[in-house]
């Protein structure tokens, strides 16, 4: 019988960057995988260590990725002195190419009713125009570079099971001043405005981490996050900008708690113990691994697309959606 807990845990480097040590332990932790580990260690094992993430072709993932990438290109070119329309055209061209299937000579993006090529292009043009005269002005990093797509890494103060420092890593969309106050900027897309509120991100691990990182890594103290919410509809896109505060005391508490969670993660790896958190199975529309966790343990490797002969690196199989 295959014991999932004994299978090799070697996610492809290209998927997560070099966040993993030689023993397969994650020592550089990003917001997304950290959230997963907090929600359920078993889910973390499946999704992160066994690399059973949602496929990169997932329309929601792909849509968000492309919006972020186009926005970064747009902002970068504007910061270099390009006019609004020129910067927009450059980012638009990027999106056109990214969503075109050269081999089949036709649009190559998803056919999802909300997240498709047409809604992507429309959303980006409307987004750029919506904030054409934006008063959320990018600040400069200590290096002199504009604070756009700013990658960070800082020591959490926690050691991994193998004794390595565990660090937090990520990429901040933007740091800027809005009405004279400094904030981290973050863009989120959703099919419903009710998920694009300050309340929905209070508390929220990613927002707290990024606000911490702005201070720790760049020496920029910010009051929280400017959330640019993008609500995608089939025929239109709407925008809402909200401030999501993060007082210093809240951040300090978050960091203390985060260290506790990291220690638990390190301990789980050291002991190879990945308990299911069955209180979380029904959250967020239901965990996609529910079918796996509910199955007989002997069947789980098959359901995950794993086998005894070290196929754990075979990535991107959709398990139970």
């Amino acid at each position, binding site marked *: 019988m295959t014991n999932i807990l004994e299978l090799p845990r070697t996610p492809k480097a290209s998927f997560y960057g070099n966040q993993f040590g030689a023993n397969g332990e994650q020592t550089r932790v990003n917001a997304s995988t950290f959230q997963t580990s907090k929600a359920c260690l078993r889910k973390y094992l499946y999704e992160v260590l066994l690399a059973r993430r949602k496929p990169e072709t997932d329309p929601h993932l792909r849509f968000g990725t492309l919006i972020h990438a186009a926005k970064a290109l747009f902002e970068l070119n504007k910061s270099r002195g390009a006019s609004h329309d020129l910067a927009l*055209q450059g980012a638009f061209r990027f999106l056109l190419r990214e969503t075109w299937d050269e081999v089949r000579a*036709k649009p190559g993006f998803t056919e999802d009713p909300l997240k498709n090529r047409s809604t992507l292009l429309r959303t980006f043009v409307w987004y750029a125009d919506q904030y054409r005269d934006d008063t959320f002005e990018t600040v400069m990093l200590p290096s002199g570079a504009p604070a756009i797509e700013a*990658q960070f890494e800082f020591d959490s103060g926690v050691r991994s099971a193998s004794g390595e420092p565990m660090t937090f890593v*990520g*990429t901040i969309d933007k740091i800027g001043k809005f009405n004279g106050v400094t904030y981290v900027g973050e863009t989120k897309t959703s*099919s*419903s405005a009710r998920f694009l509120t300050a309340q929905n991100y209070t508390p929220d691990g990613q927002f707290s981490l990024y606000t911490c990182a702005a201070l720790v890594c760049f020496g920029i103290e910010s009051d929280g996050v400017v959330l640019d919410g993008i*609500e995608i*509809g089939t025929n239109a896109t709407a*925008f809402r900008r909200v401030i999501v505060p993060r007082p210093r005391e809240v951040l300090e508490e978050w960091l203390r708690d985060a260290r506790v969670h990291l220690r638990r993660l390190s301990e789980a790896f050291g002991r190879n113990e990945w308990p299911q958190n069955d209180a979380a199975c029904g959250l967020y529309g239901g965990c996609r691994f529910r079918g796996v966790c509910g199955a007989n343990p002997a069947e789980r490797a098959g359901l995950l697309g794993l086998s005894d002969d070290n196929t754990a690196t075979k990535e991107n199989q959709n398990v139970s959606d």
Partner: protein
Amino acid sequence: MANEFPTSPEVLGEASAFSLSDLALMSPGEMGPSAEMAYINELRAYRERYERALGAKGVRAKPGASTKAAPKTSLALLDVAFGDDSDGGF
């Protein structure tokens, strides 16, 4: 789906030399800078028509205004849940 944006023909109508549907099927290679800008401008014109139609219907054209609450679909939830996967680089 989740949003209740107007879908009436007058909103979706197109009235210029370049149609959005034609532009959407043009390959990036054959498009060229002028068609790119035409595409961008068509999307802007579409937005104007959309917002005019909202006004005519007496619906507030305030960004983010949604006339109905979205259903509790996993699609909507997944949107946000995986939004930060695009943080790039890691």
